[in-house]
């Protein structure tokens, strides 16, 4: 079932990220509230709360700070798409919400390789995990309609270490409808 392949809770997604970053296992996660916000438990004091926050913390722990962007501009852009992920992608559940998200991303990715431009960042990783269940269900026609999203998604799922056990989403190389616009 598609549901089984979906990185459902934040904790599962963070486990995928840990592995991708090459961090040793051992972090303990809980969930909080109705939205099931992930919480990273720590031995001393209160833990860290929130997918974006914990993900950025793990990246720094793995000393891969470049995944958060290098310049002020890149860092802000990464933050923006992480926020988009936790507010719009996670908050949106209707077909209409999904359509708007794909449309937004398709326009944004028109002239970019990655969400933050030419560098692969945490925003690509978390957006990929967050959209996996959406992309799995798209029809061939929809994949063509959101061509830039499809190209980006296919690129990210082949990025070393990202996909792991998640299902590979198939994209057709040749366009079926040449006048698709």
């Amino acid at each position, binding site marked *: 079932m598609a549901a089984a392949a979906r990185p459902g809770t934040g904790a599962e997604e963070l486990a995928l990220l840990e592995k991708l970053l090459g961090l040793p296992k051992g972090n303990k996660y809980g969930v909080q509230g*109705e*939205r099931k*916000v992930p919480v990273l438990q720590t031995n001393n004091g209160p833990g*860290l*709360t*929130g*997918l*974006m*926050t914990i993900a*950025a*913390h793990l990246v720094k722990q793995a000393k891969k700070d470049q995944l958060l962007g290098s310049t*002020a*501009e890149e*860092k*802000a*852009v990464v*933050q*923006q798409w992480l*926020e*988009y992920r*936790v*507010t719009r992608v996670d*908050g949106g*559940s*209707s*077909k*209409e919400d999904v359509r*708007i998200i794909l449309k*937004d991303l398709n*326009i*944004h990715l028109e002239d970019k390789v990655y969400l933050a*431009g030419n560098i692969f960042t945490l925003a690509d990783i978390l957006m990929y995990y967050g959209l996996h269940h959406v992309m799995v269900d798209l029809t061939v026609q929809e994949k063509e309609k959101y061509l830039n999203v499809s190209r980006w998604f296919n690129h990210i799922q082949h990025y070393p270490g990202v996909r792991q056990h998640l299902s590979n989403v198939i994209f057709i190389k040749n366009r079926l409808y040449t006048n698709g616009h």
Partner: protein
Amino acid sequence: MRLRVAAGGPAALKVLAAAGAAAAPVRLVWGGPLGETAAAVAAPLPGREPVAPTPVIPAPQQGPPGLLPPAERPLAQLSPTWVPALELDSGTVLFSPNAICQFFFLARGEEPTDLTNQWLEWEATELQPAASAALYAQLVHGKKGLEAVEALGKLLAHIEQNLSRRGTAYLAGDAKSVADVVVWGTLFPVLQDETSLPSEMQALRTWFQSMTLSEACRKAADSVLMPKALLEFKSYLQKQPPPCLAMERATSN
């Protein structure tokens, strides 16, 4: 860089306060998706504050609908609802209010920490939806005082607990950070009526008042809210669909 804000758009407050607090040299463009009025003014520069209060931020003006000033490209090419928007000199457009605030602080070397990240994420996912609902209840349904901020109760308690447990003057430590500006900007329209602030939340009250009295926040509030008070917000909100909290949304259409 150009910062586009919508007159009466609630997020205008936090981005203007952040630009002021971080002394970012921005050109302001007032206007919604339909019209833009370019008003070139630099935000306060670092250094001494001027003695006399100078209006560094021009009053909101609505541009003629559908007409763009010549030689001005429209900002964000994305969904037109995305105001505020910050266009950087590179051409990159930031559309998330929190990312815009973060950029201003990053640009002067203030890096995010686990704590500032956590406050920003909490603000975007928890506080913001609840504050919009509370503001709607106040302005559109005419609820007053504590009744109007009912939906915010737990969230205000969260701030109170964090401030009193850490014993710091600001949310992420002893110095003001992007977290304070972002959280204040969302709370101010809802809490400026003093009766809305629960009296037992002493740490929250102290923090909130010190933020409200700070130069950057005061100027931003003056330009966005005063003297027309919340009428701007009201007319903006009345044009929007009623906010609904994510958890209340139907899971299917």
